[in-house]
């Protein structure tokens, strides 16, 4: 459990196949009723990624499992160990008796939090419990029951359970030690409020481009994720009155029944603004070689930023087949359409 006095925020949202959203939000500090009502509307902002998940799910059954960020306080902000330091979104998508449901949570906490443990509770217990509750109530009461009430109660139970779980120290899971291969690098810079994001990957005619495309949702989707979520997290923090905190993507995990894809990122801030380097990683396979574990990649990214290493050389060291001289811009609709047309083409 969280230490007394710790800052936290916790939201749990459930959406069913008719895109109906049920929510429950908990905060460590009091807000007025009006403010809480306004906060309820953020579920629609957060459902953006869920809708994306839904579209992807229909095609390739990809779903977003979680997005993890660290929080950076403003320079003059008073910092202590009860202050929120991490902000994470976890999503469970399930298909039962032919329809898809999503259960989505965001967690702001002073701890890094054991995400695997929280995700297990979300995906294996809270989400099935809502779905099963509905099925049983339908069977027992036919139409003569209040489904809204049932979902709200289950969500309340779920959020209580998640709150109880918060404050756990993180364990190292096998996932961290598995071997992964880099299939793309994303460089994001922010200077004077302007965001510049580029993706680097295999050449268009390199067969590895298509191999990697089979292992990820799409280059387009993977490319827009970090900017999208970072912006979304910052907006949410503002809504919660956390104006002095900024989020930085650490890890995004997506999966489908057969595959997993990770995005990991490190950042540095200086007088020039903020620079982030991120890697799109897939579990090593026979075709995309040059694989290492997550510790290696994290260290490598840190080195690139802290020692200001030559970007092109570092990218080649990560995967010699990635072309560090051809950037795919991620900031305009036109350039994103270009990625869809060329990088995401299966031809």
């Amino acid at each position, binding site marked *: 459990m969280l230490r007394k006095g710790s800052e936290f925020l916790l939201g749990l949202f459930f959406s069913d196949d008719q895109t109906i959203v049920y929510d429950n939000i908990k905060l460590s500090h009091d807000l007025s009723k009006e403010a809480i009502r306004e906060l309820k509307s953020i579920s629609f902002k957060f459902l953006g990624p869920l809708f994306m998940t839904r579209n992807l799910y229909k095609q390739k059954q990809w779903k977003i499992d979680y997005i993890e960020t660290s929080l950076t306080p403003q320079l003059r902000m008073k910092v202590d160990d009860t202050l929120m330091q991490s902000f994470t979104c976890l999503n469970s998508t399930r298909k039962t008796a032919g329809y898809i449901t999503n259960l989505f949570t965001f967690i702001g906490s002073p701890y890094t939090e054991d995400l695997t443990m929280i995700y297990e509770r979300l995906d*294996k217990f809270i989400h099935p419990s809502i779905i*099963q509750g509905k099925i049983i109530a339908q*069977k027992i*009461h036919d139409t003569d029951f209040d489904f809204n009430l049932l979902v709200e109660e289950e969500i*309340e139970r779920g959020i209580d359970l998640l709150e*109880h779980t918060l404050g756990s120290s993180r364990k190292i899971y096998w996932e961290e030690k598995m071997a992964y291969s880099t299939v793309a690098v994303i460089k994001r810079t922010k200077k004077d409020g302007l965001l510049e994001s580029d993706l680097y990957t295999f050449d268009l005619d390199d067969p590895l481009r298509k191999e990697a495309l089979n292992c990820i949702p799409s280059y387009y989707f993977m490319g827009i994720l970090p900017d999208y979520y970072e912006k979304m997290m910052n907006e949410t923090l503002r809504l919660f009155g956390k104006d002095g905190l900024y989020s930085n993507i650490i890890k995004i995990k997506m999966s489908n029944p057969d595959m997993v894809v990770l995005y990991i990122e490190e950042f540095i801030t200086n007088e020039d603004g903020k620079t982030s380097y991120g890697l799109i990683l897939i579990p090593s396979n026979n075709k995309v070689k040059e694989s290492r574990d997550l510790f290696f990649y994290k260290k490598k990214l840190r080195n690139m930023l802290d020692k200001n290493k030559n970007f092109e050389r570092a990218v080649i060291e990560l995967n010699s087949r990635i072309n560090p001289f051809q950037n795919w811009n991620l900031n305009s609709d036109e350039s994103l359409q270009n990625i869809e047309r060329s990088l995401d083409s299966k031809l």
Partner: protein
Amino acid sequence: MEEIQFNKLYNIDKERLYSNFQRIQNQFKDLNSTEIIATFLYNQSIGTSIPLISEVLTYFQHNLSKDVELLDFVFEWIRANKIRLEYKKYINLSDYKAYTIALDDIIFLFFLKYDEYLRLLFRENMEEYEFTTLYQIIFNPKQSNPINLIELLERNKAKVPSIIINEEKISIKIHTLREGLSEMIRNDYYEGKPADIKFINYEKKTSNENAIEKDFDGTMVERLIKFYCFQKREIDKKEFTLAINQFLSSYFQYGIFYNFNEFKEKLISSFADYIYSGLTQNYENYSIETIQNELFLEINEVEKKFLNVRLKGKAWIEDLKPILQNFIEKFVNQL
């Protein structure tokens, strides 16, 4: 594979147990095989009596998978006792804010995976209420009240139905586990709490301190009465049921316990209030007090049954539904 995993967590020495079993087998040659196994289990501090254990074994023996022996099930019953001891240690050390959190967390940590494993011992088409009953028996402490197997099965039949859609059995295992384990976990949870909080509505007060206490919402009742006053059309029984259901469900929460005295007055005044609000000007002869009094008399008739009874929200909904429905039907008929 699963057995290895559970052996690591809750190891039982099958060799030693088997030699104990053989000893009992040699000792009681005049007993039949089920009675011998029941005696063996009873000697292992399992179950409240040998006849009851025999009855349970006989019943569940018919549900075992093809390659599973009765002794395999018996060993799992012994393991269940071990899991119970482990979980009890955990619940005593944990600081749960409310019983419902304890219930969900304990099921997730100790029973969810075990349920998957245990189901492998039984036929795929074993009914969910039978699993609920099985959990109520195998995790039941020896010193607790004796169990009536048939009564338990009957009681669970309505509450835990198996659900089959397109010939596929839909998993409702969390519901099955909650029904099967809630009583045991509740008792263990409150056992470690100070006496003064055992009998108050602990969950409700702590689950969300900022929550406003719930009120009855009878807008459907009000609408129904209004509709009748304007149209004078006969109201379908189902519409009454829906309105009463909404009224009761708006107040009672699933999984939370209520005492009758906690809500009696609120229920009478709210229900009468909504009925009164639904009446149009043609019915000026009715006052809110008259409706309240009539309802009070109706409730008074059954009050004895409910006095000092502490039930879950869901149970109150079921118990109060016919009383309120009867009242409102009579009320509309006399309008």
